[in-house]
């Protein structure tokens, strides 16, 4: 699951200008940008789970997962949450403006290695964005997988991501279950942490793989709940985040124990990370 070597990435630290084709508001602080290559720029090939370094001219870069359909080869989709000056600037980028793109970087969701398995996708908050490309890939090859479920945890119903797409996903035989931290009685699904959905999913533990993205605390509890159902940690894949500057394994910022999140991850089997995550402030 290694990222491509430098020969396939034109210039490692050179940003490519892209144009914002559309800036769609998802929630009060989250936007989805549709980016197309500007001028002579080329669309890079990418795999579900990978990320780009998105660039605001003269300000800097941040790592953002690609969240579009892998079959869509002419547009790059990124869902971004405004939490700092760079992400806010990216969320504010109007249609027609330029955003720089560098990448793709990182490891991919290993869906193709688990054909014939039950697949459980667990998304917390904006974690649904990095999982969406894996979901599209699975839906395009739906018959190759057994039961596929998507468990989504959100703070409240009104900030669920991609709600309008879920009906279409359900039609592709994806069992979608939702839960929120609190809701008004209009809400008809569950209220509680996303872990409450796990005991209710039908799966065969010896042939189940799970892809999990969300805040680290959430991922830890989800892994526990899935492990309690008998799924080994080597088949529970998480997507990790750390401070990144170069995204290529040189700057040293993203290390977690011996792993560089940018090139050994961000997708990891939990078994690889477990001893390191157990140490505080590592």
């Amino acid at each position, binding site marked *: 699951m290694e990222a491509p070597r430098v020969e396939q990435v034109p210039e490692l630290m050179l940003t490519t200008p892209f144009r914002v084709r559309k800036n769609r508001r998802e929630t009060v602080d989250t936007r989805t940008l549709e980016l197309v290559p500007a001028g002579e720029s080329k669309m890079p090939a990418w795999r579900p789970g990978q990320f780009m370094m998105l660039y605001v001219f003269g300000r800097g870069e941040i790592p953002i997962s690609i969240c579009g359909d892998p079959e869509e080869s002419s547009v790059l989709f990124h869902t971004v949450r405004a939490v700092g000056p760079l992400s806010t600037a990216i969320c504010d980028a109007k249609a027609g403006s330029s955003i720089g793109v560098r990448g793709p970087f990182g490891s991919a969701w290993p869906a193709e290695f688990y054909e014939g398995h039950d697949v459980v996708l667990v998304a*917390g*908050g904006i974690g649904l964005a990095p999982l969406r490309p894996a979901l599209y890939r699975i839906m395009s090859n739906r018959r190759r997988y057994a039961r596929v479920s998507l468990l989504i945890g959100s703070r409240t119903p009104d900030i669920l991501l991609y709600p309008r797409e879920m009906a279409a996903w359900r039609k592709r035989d994806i069992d979608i279950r939702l839960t929120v*931290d609190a809701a008004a009685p209009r809400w008809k*699904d569950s209220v509680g*942490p996303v872990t409450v959905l796990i005991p209710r999913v039908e799966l065969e533990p010896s042939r189940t793989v799970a892809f999990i993205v969300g805040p680290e605390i959430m991922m830890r509890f989800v892994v526990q709940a899935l492990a309690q159902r008998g799924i080994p940690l080597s088949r529970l894949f998480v997507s990790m985040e750390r401070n990144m500057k170069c995204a290529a394994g040189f700057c040293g910022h993203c290390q977690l124990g011996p792993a560089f999140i940018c090139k050994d991850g961000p997708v990891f089997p939990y078994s690889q990370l477990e001893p390191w995550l157990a140490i505080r402030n590592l």
Partner: protein
Amino acid sequence: MQKDIESLLAEHPFFRDFAPDYRALIAGCGKNTHFDSGQLLARTGDSANLFFAIRHGRASIEIHSPERGPLIVQTVDGGEIVGWSWLFPPYRWTFDVRAMEEVRAISFDGECLRGKCDRDPVMGYDFMKRFARVFMQRLENTRLQLLDLYGSPAR
């Protein structure tokens, strides 16, 4: 009627591996109930002499706030239980419990249950252990909700 309750309890995950004679004892305190969607199973402040084993359907646990209206803080599905206020005085519900869809449940009379646990402490201890496990999980869930994990990170 009691025998029906007993077999229903044998199917319910909370009671499934409870000793059969304990189940028979407890069944004496239970009765079948049915709620339409939107109906309250319990109301805040009402005397709490019931605890429910939900068989089918989803129920919400709600708190009512003046400015924000009713807020669901937790949902409970078929196979789960709801209600702890019957355990200790003043025996009053501290939340609303509402059927979110059609709900079938077994309701247990609290006074009857307390009595049976007092008279057979060995059974009582087993019963309380099961209860404790459920509420331990609920507390863990509540803590995760409390952390507001998906909220805006601090600057």
